[in-house]
């Protein structure tokens, strides 16, 4: 660095900057390590909770295997085979190892390994939730900004009423009416399920996301069909997250627009759109990340109502069925995935804070 400094003699600042970039990388590595450590600790806590739930619920895992008419010696033998006679700490350690090696047990209602089931149902939810949140953010944020920038105007009122509807209308009603109008009557969108029955099982799952897999296989027809089926449930989910995100964006932005630094920007002669989108919007990115992260996590948890109405083979549906059948392995497995998603999204927003907020570093 000192060697090439004379070559850049005109701008001593640049040498300085590369130095600070090196320090920045070291700091980033350190904070990433800290994040990894806290993710690990949180995940361990999550495992402890699912393990504990598994022991507390009044469902005997031995009976689930041998049935309630098994003789006493068979029952005992199975109990020992399942390791249930061991101390609790040892059982927990075994459970953690099993989970880490990808073994969540077998589901009694589907007869498959829970991991395989989850590999199937989670992408279905992921696909729907992701498109839903993209709609919610893509429309909700601009709507919130627009409403705040014209506070009190008719456009503000329209956006606020739309937002209120998103809160007040139940998801199942909107889903059913949507199906009745856009699918049954107008035939603009696909019906329940991820694909028309004719296309079912034609695509070898790679990622489990139909839009991605169909493109990988070069099947544009299936891609179009999957999109057609996604349109309605994603719009409904999108509308609900849009309502929330637009409301929060509006109130965050109104708060910023009353700050003195916004007046400063106007005094400088900055055009109003830039005052809003640069000076007032940048600071709200920080709380907005939290709001968006939480709504996305909520969608990934699987909207049971929406998945039921649209016969969507997602994690919400899977979890509900498992619960109703007292299928503990499936319930715990799904809970674990949902918990992991929450941890992941929370940590991701923590990292984003550090990038977005110069005061956090």
């Amino acid at each position, binding site marked *: 660095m000192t060697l090439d400094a004379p070559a850049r003699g005109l701008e001593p600042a640049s040498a300085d900057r590369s130095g600070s970039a090196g320090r920045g990388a070291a700091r980033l590595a350190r904070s990433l390590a800290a994040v990894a450590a806290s993710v690990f600790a949180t995940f361990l806590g999550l495992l402890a909770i699912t393990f504990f739930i598994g022991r507390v619920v009044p469902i005997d895992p031995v009976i689930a295997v041998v049935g309630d008419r098994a003789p006493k010696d068979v029952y005992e033998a199975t109990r020992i085979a399942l390791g249930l006679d061991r101390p609790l700490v040892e059982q927990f350690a075994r459970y953690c190892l099993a989970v880490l090696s990808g073994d969540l047990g077998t589901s009694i209602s589907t007869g498959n390994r829970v991991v395989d089931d989850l590999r199937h149902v989670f992408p279905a939810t992921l696909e729907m939730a992701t498109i839903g949140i993209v709609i919610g953010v893509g429309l909700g944020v601009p709507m919130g900004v627009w409403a705040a920038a014209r506070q009190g105007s008719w456009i503000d009122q329209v956006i606020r009423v739309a937002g209120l509807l998103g809160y007040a209308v139940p998801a199942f009603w909107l889903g059913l009416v949507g199906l009745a109008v856009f699918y049954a009557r107008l035939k603009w969108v696909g019906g329940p399920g991820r694909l028309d029955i004719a296309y079912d099982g034609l695509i070898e799952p790679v990622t489990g996301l139909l839009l991605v897999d169909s493109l990988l296989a070069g099947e544009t027809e299936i891609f179009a069909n999957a999109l057609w089926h996604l349109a309605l449930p994603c719009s409904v989910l999108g509308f609900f997250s849009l309502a929330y995100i637009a409301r929060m964006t509006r109130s965050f932005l109104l708060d910023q627009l009353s700050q*003195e630094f916004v007046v400063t920007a106007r*005094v*400088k002669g900055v055009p109003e759109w830039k005052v809003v989108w640069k000076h007032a919007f940048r600071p709200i990115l920080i709380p907005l990340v939290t709001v968006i992260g939480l709504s996305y996590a909520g969608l990934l948890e699987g909207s049971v109502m929406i998945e039921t109405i649209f016969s969507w083979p997602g994690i919400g549906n899977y979890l509900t069925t498992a619960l109703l059948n007292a299928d503990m392995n499936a319930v715990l497995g799904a809970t674990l995935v949902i918990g992991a998603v929450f941890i992941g999204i929370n940590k991701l927003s923590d990292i984003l804070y550090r990038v977005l907020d110069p*005061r956090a570093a």
Partner: protein
Amino acid sequence: MSDALLEVENLRVSFPSPRGERVEVVRGVSFRVGRERLGIVGESGSGKSITGRAILRLIRPPGRVTADRLAFRGRNLLDLSDTAMREVRGAGISMVMQDPKFSLNPVIRVGDQIAEALVTHERRPSREVRRRVIEMLQAVRIDDPERVARLYPHQLSGGMGQRVMIAMMLIARPDLLIADEPTSALDVSVQAQVLDIVDALVRDEGMGLIFISHDLDLVSSYCDRILVMHRGEIVEECAAGRLREARHPYTRGLLAAVPRLDDTREELPVLDRRAMGGT
């Protein structure tokens, strides 16, 4: 005074009260400013800050601004389109605000905030903009301008923040600077430094200055002429050196309440508001 930069005649600003009727907070203020230093003093709520903001048309609805004349270099500001008004802001008239903790954007580097004030008015190559920003930071006596330009506002002290503010408001070379309580949020020890910087820059550039403050001593030592505002009206106008000869009971009351180093009074007098027929 034919070379008036700013002519204000019968300026009125009103806001709706919760009960529905409008309350006038600036009630028919008239004055002119040339390339001189004009001080506006008054207690809080006297309408002095609102006057400053009304000149820049920063009063937003439901606030309402009217004036028989509000002209900057002969153009009536109240008739200008929003676009034309934006050209006046920053490049014609600019304003240093009270507290840099709140008046600087917390998530934008100060160098970029200063640069924006210039770039908004003049398209220039980024190298030159950078050079001007550094020059401007040097002009407000910041020792390490390259480093400071890369900082965020929360990394600056109050005095530094206010110097950044001054640099930002002067970089586009305005003709008139409104300084709205520019030192009230600062330590006494830094106040003089900041005011000296403003004073020197205003003199060098031959700008007009409107210095709004509640501090009579400060205003009389940094200004040529003083307006005293009280309850939305100008009650006294005099040359800074002749403030002691002021006649209006409000001004006399304010002057009497200023503590002096050689003070022997047991008790500082307070304003006798009844004598002014006020509240």
